[in-house]
């Protein structure tokens, strides 16, 4: 069975997570072998996921951890008093 691009897009996320049923995965792979648009969509999506998972993207505010533990200390002292 041959599937068109729109159907392939619906499976790209499952394909990236390697949780597609075997027959669907084969169909998607077959399509990707000859479709440069879907291959580029897959590659760009994978690339974007790698970049957004990088710790440099979402940075913690300077001093966040220190302020958090100072506030916790206050709470711990308040409760134990």
């Amino acid at each position: 069975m041959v599937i068109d691009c729109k159907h392939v897009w619906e499976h790209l996320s499952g394909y990236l997570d390697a949780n597609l049923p075997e027959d669907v995965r084969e169909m998607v792979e077959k399509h990707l072998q000859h479709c440069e648009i879907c291959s580029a969509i897959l590659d760009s999506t994978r690339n974007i996921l790698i970049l957004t998972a990088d710790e440099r993207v979402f940075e913690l505010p300077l001093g966040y951890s220190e302020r958090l533990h100072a506030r916790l200390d206050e709470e711990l002292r308040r409760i134990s008093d």
Partner: protein
Amino acid sequence: MIAAILGGDVQLFHELIRPYERRVYLMALSFLKSEPDAEDAAQEAFLKAYRNLKNFRGEARFGTWLVSIALNEARSRIRHRNTIRMESLDESPETEGHVSPALLRDWKEIPSEALERKEVRSLLEDAVTSLPSIYREVFQLRDVEQLNVNEAAEVLGISIGAVKVRLHRARMMLQKILAPQLKQAVPKRRRWAWS
């Protein structure tokens, strides 16, 4: 460690939460979209976790439990801000049609070194922040915080199927927004490769 804290060694709570500081803050930030508000919500979430530690049953992983508390804290603050109604206009129900990605003919990988540039980091952060909340929260948990599908479903109180559908849409939305922007923002190396 939890048993020791409940037994009176309360200072151990500092160590217990250290691995989750980032995750809890980012969860709050993804909702509140303001660093000071997110920091305050994260602090409050940790305090609530401490006060309710005796209720932690261990059925969930501690990190998942903490994120649930942070999520509830952030949601409750959003409700206070009265913006939930505005935001819900952007949200598509599960039954709505697919999201079309940005069509490209070629993609040359953008290396992680590009993240040294503030401009590139901002593009990524802004794109994630711009997602409607039902997609943003799933994306944040799965693809930023690397929770598995079951954990994300548990934190959000939705089915595994709903996590997969929302995650797929979130990823496609991000590809649609970011692929053209990143191509423009990081053109140097590829200008040669594509010529």
